[in-house]
């Protein structure tokens, strides 16, 4: 498809387990973002990838969270030893390279993670 694709759409996991969330950005988009949205809350920035530059990991809430982007395309967000407070919708977005002029972000539908 032409849009940002995330999988799975829903994930229920037991506390303490590890989970992997996948994001397929729009082809040709060099920037990729992960956000987290808790119920009724705004979007919380997690991590940003831009081309071959070092990712901006400043939003990751703890060292249990990590993300990688292989070949400048697909990205995986990994949460280790999940906790109940990790329950949220995880949103991925991609955009063309921002040259300071501004560029819109295209969001996927999100992965709803529930930790029980």
């Amino acid at each position, binding site marked *: 498809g032409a849009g940002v694709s995330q999988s799975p759409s829903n994930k229920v996991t037991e506390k303490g387990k590890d989970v992997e969330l996948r994001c397929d950005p729009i082809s040709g988009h060099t920037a990729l*973002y992960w956000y987290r949205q808790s119920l009724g809350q705004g*979007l919380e920035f997690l991590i940003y990838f831009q081309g071959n530059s070092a990712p*901006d990991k400043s*939003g990751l809430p703890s060292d249990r969270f990590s993300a990688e982007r292989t070949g400048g395309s697909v990205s995986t967000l990994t949460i280790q030893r999940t906790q109940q407070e990790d329950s949220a919708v995880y949103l991925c977005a991609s955009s063309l390279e921002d040259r300071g002029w*501004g560029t819109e972000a295209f969001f996927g539908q999100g992965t709803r993670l529930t930790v029980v």
Partner: protein
Amino acid sequence: SQKIEQNSEALNIQEGKTATLTCNYTNYSPAYLQWYRQDPGRGPVFLLLIRENEKEKRKERLKVTFDTTLKQSLFHITASQPADSATYLCALDHNYGQNFVFGPGTRLSVLP
């Protein structure tokens, strides 16, 4: 500290009226600001982008203003319709476009 605020958590207006949503920011110097629409269970969808050297931008029934002195953006929907009911998010670039930071959103309900 850095902060983005949107005028109210929820806004109810009558169909046909103009909805005005506010986005205020503190301790950011964005080169541009964006507005997104989010429907329940879906990711945000881009609506408009306005740059720091632009005062106003229009798209159909939508209008955005950007006042870098007041550190404020106003988002207007004219001739509002029930289909405009959604949560509207403002976002501004952070760290010279290195990522976007979002406001908490305003949930707009247009009543028939």
